[in-house]
């Protein structure tokens, strides 16, 4: 039962939705940061790797905790059975429940539950045998029921962890970030700007979609750690298939950060007053928001002021945080257990099935790639693991290349990745029905010297842009493009004759003065004239033979 509201947006009157940007005591001219680049640059994250906050130099330390909201990959919403897609038309996927029609009731989508459970297991959490749903109340135009169904009193899972190491971009040692809890909750709708300044339009497509909220302990010390954590979490959730399609730009992962600062010498004492920055929707904003908060809080304290506990927003244009509401007007969410939903009782069997459905986790995978039979370098292994879908391609390709892991990895992190970066429509190798057979064919042609390395890359590019038709083979295309290297041919002899005739001086030098480096001139010229269709080794051998030099 799907009611379409496409023809009209739910039209509501507006009010001031955002706090006006006010004067913020921003970066005060002192440079607290040391800029460095993360060794990992993963294409589908927007922006540059965040700066690194170096607390040791200035005598300050920062404490950072995160709340991540991950849209659950599932064909349907959490409670309504409506389809969910980030790219639906406005108000296309809305059932009476999603629009909070009176009398409607939630019905838990078991697939979302299983997905949240898989994420919890991947984070090493303790799973609650009995969890329950609660209502969190507040009035907002994109919250149709006036409450959000979440898990406040009895979350699905608690006490997990995620360990950050050098493979995740940490320069100095590792950091264990505790996962305090994992809970399932509903997403809200979206408010859009209307025709006039005072209009707000509401799109309920997203309303009621399933989210997993992951709450960390206050365990991170720098923006680098926090951004590494978010990146790693993104990759992990994507890897296990829990994160909804799309990336930050589609809002499938959103982040709130809690930041407090204190003097370094007070390490171990109580935490400073913390501020929360809400709704960060890119890794770059997470980094920038934390950096700005740290510098703002330090300046405030150094000026003799104190930090007010408050919720702040992030302005991506000025890269500063702005106050939204302070503690005095903090919301009273009036949590109560949701009387429409019975508690979730998980059987050992169900948990075991979810556990069994998890793929090998990224850290395990990375470790395995650096060990025999692959024995890749940690750097290459990280590149592969951090690009969704590429490890699978790597393993299949290596098998087809009779175990030549190095060649396989180099082709993937080289030409395949660069193709991926250049094609904005493709986000990962998993989404692309990537032809591993085709890639293997190309590599084999290069290995048996039927085509040159350079031609191989060119050929691959062509094949990725324009897939093979059924009747074509990779060799056919290579031949069509005149990439096949030929070993013999009258053409070569004729060319040699011609070149030798017009370059008698060079031949003298080679033959009489042993200037063998000049052989390269002949080989290069022939390659150039023949469009490199001959194997350079063959050409080299021919020239040497004709000149009678070894």
């Amino acid at each position: 039962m799907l009611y379409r509201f496409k023809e009209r947006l739910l039209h509501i009157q507006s009010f001031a939705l955002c706090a006006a940007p006010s004067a913020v005591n921003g970066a005060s001219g002192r440079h607290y940061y040391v800029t460095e680049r993360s060794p990992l640059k993963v294409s589908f994250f927007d922006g540059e790797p965040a700066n690194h906050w170096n607390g040791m130099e200035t005598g300050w330390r920062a404490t950072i905790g995160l709340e991540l909201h991950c849209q659950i990959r599932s064909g349907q919403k959490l409670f309504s059975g409506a389809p969910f897609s980030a790219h639906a038309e406005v108000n296309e996927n809305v059932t009476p429940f999603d629009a909070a029609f009176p009398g409607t009731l939630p019905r838990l989508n078991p697939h979302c539950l299983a997905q949240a459970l898989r994420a919890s297991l991947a984070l090493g959490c303790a799973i609650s045998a009995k969890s329950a749903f609660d209502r969190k109340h507040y009035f907002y135009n994109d919250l149709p029921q006036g409450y959000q169904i979440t898990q406040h009193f009895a979350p699905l899972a608690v006490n997990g962890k995620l360990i950050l190491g050098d493979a995740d971009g940490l320069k100095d040692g590792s950091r264990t970030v505790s996962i305090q809890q994992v809970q399932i909750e509903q997403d809200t709708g979206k408010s859009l700007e209307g025709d006039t300044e005072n209009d707000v339009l509401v799109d309920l497509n997203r309303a009621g979609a399933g989210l997993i909220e992951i709450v960390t302990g206050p365990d991170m010390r720098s923006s680098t750690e926090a951004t590494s954590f978010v990146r790693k979490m993104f990759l992990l959730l994507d890897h296990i298939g829990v994160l909804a399609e799309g990336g930050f730009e589609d809002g499938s992962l959103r982040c709130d950060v809690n930041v407090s600062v204190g003097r370094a010498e007070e390490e171990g004492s109580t935490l400073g007053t913390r501020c929360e920055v809400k709704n960060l929707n890119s890794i770059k904003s997470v980094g920038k928001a934390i950096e700005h908060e740290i510098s703002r809080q330090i300046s405030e304290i150094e000026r003799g002021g104190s930090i007010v506990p408050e919720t702040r927003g992030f302005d991506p244009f000025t890269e500063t945080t702005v106050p939204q509401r302070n503690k005095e007007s903090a919301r009273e969410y009036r949590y109560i257990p949701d009387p429409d939903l019975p508690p979730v009782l998980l059987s050992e069997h169900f948990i075991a099935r979810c556990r069994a459905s998890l793929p090998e986790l990224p850290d395990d995978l990375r470790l395995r790639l650096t060990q025999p039979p692959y024995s890749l370098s940690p750097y290459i292994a990280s590149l592969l693991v951090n690009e969704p879908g590429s490890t699978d391609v790597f393993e299949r390709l290596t098998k087809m290349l009779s175990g030549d892991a190095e060649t396989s990895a180099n082709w993937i992190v080289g030409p395949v990745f660069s193709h991926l970066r250049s094609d904005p429509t493709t986000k990962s190798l998993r989404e692309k029905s990537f032809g591993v057979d085709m890639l293997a064919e190309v590599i084999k042609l290069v290995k048996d010297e039927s085509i040159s390395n350079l031609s191989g890359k060119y050929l691959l590019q062509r094949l990725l842009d324009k897939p093979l038709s059924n009747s074509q083979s990779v060799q056919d295309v290579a031949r069509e493009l005149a990439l096949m290297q030929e070993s013999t041919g009258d053409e070569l002899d004729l060319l040699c004759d011609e070149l030798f005739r017009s370059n008698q001086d060079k031949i003298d030098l080679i033959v009489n003065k042993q200037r063998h480096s000049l052989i390269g001139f002949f080989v290069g010229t022939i390659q150039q004239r023949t469009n490199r269709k001959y194997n350079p080794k063959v050409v080299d051998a021919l020239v040497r033979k004709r000149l009678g030099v070894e």
Partner: protein
Amino acid sequence: MSRFEPTVNSFISKRKESDCVADVSPGGTKAVGDSAQERWEAGTPKSLLDGVPIALKDNICLHSDLPTTCASSHLRRHVSPYSATCASRVVSAGAVIVGKTNMDEFAMGSASVHGAFGKVVNPCGVGADRDGIVGEEQRVAGGSSGGSAAAVAAGMCYAALGSDTGGSVRLPASYCGIVGFKPSYGRIPRWGLVAYASSLDTVGILARTVGCAEVVYDVVKGPDGKDMSAWAGGETNGGRADVRDPGDLRGVVVGVPEEYLPAELSPATIATLSSCLTHLSRLGATIVPVSLPHTRQALSAYYVIAPAEASSNLARYDGVRYGERTVERDEDANGWYAATRTQGLGEEVKRRIMVGTYVMTESAYHSYFLHSQRYRRLVQFDFDRVFRHPNPLHGPLPQPSSSPSNPAPAKVNVLLTPTSLSPPPPLSSYPPSDPVLEYVNDVATIPASLAGLPACTVPFARARGAEWGGMPVGVQVIGQFGDEEVVLRVARAVEMGGGMDV
């Protein structure tokens, strides 16, 4: 309908009068009735309800041109895009929906006087009752399903569906002299019943006889997959074997809880109850006194839990999607919501939302909300201790070892109690200035609601005298969770002895 409805005011919206006479358009009442007539004549009715006029309380969604207002001016023009499970089931069974009945706004009230569409008048006071006893003044019909009760009592429909959260089916049925049956919580799916207090809301049936109620119950019961709180357990809880025949109650133990007989109980109620017990023992039943010690706290617990859930359930009527948007936009969002809700919602609803909102705040949550939930559980355990069969929701309770000085309490099949402690109040005195005076009307019906138990009120007597003025007196049969059939059989047995004057 044309005779009583102008006085009784039991409907908020109804099928056009002309529909019943000449309209032969598809879906018109006449057409539906006619085709049902043909089916009956052919011997192939859809069900026992084929062609039978049924009314729906106006908080039960019906996908039709009739709005679903919940008697709130906030939902004055709300037309539901879907039908409630119970409504679809009676429609599929061939019933003709004659209209949507009046009620207290969002089912909050015990007198059907808190609605945007006027008060419901008890038809027993306007000469509509079957024995022709005419009261001297207009009385309240009871609430919140007062319109449903009045429509049935005045003969405007065969039966009606209502909702019972703390007694909203049983109290008006008792006041209007008809049968009101509230099954176990979740026996009839709540999908399409506009929520008041979700953990208590139960679809109930109002009919003139227990038999009529059973016919409707058989059509609407059973899970539908859309309500996760629906009870998917068996048809009966094992008690059925103990009560085979309403005319033969040998071996059946009827408990009378002493807490339901307070000093302020009206003499007519006591007289009714005792003649009913005499009647049941003549049929072979054993009558035993029992104690349900936490009954006293049930009312208070109810008036914390129900408002809390109401405050949550009614948050959606904020003027953005639902609710009349009477106030122009405001810079301050919360001020705008507040103004809209202040205008659109009635006094009683606002009172309960305020109470509910308060008990849910962080500072009051433990002392009020959790505390009340604890009492709710104690009320449930009280019942479990006296019933012969264990509660299928949580199995047998640990039994305290019995000793000669502390004998194990008697185990009963059903409990018999008054449905209300006093006669239907005069309409002129309602709503009372102190809302608590209205709240106490629910004292006998709330415990079964808190425990989710099936309960049925049956009219047993007419009470003479100035206080009662010929008004009917009902008695309530309460059974163990899931034991609807036992409750209905004993209710039939009660019915067999009814009709006396006290």
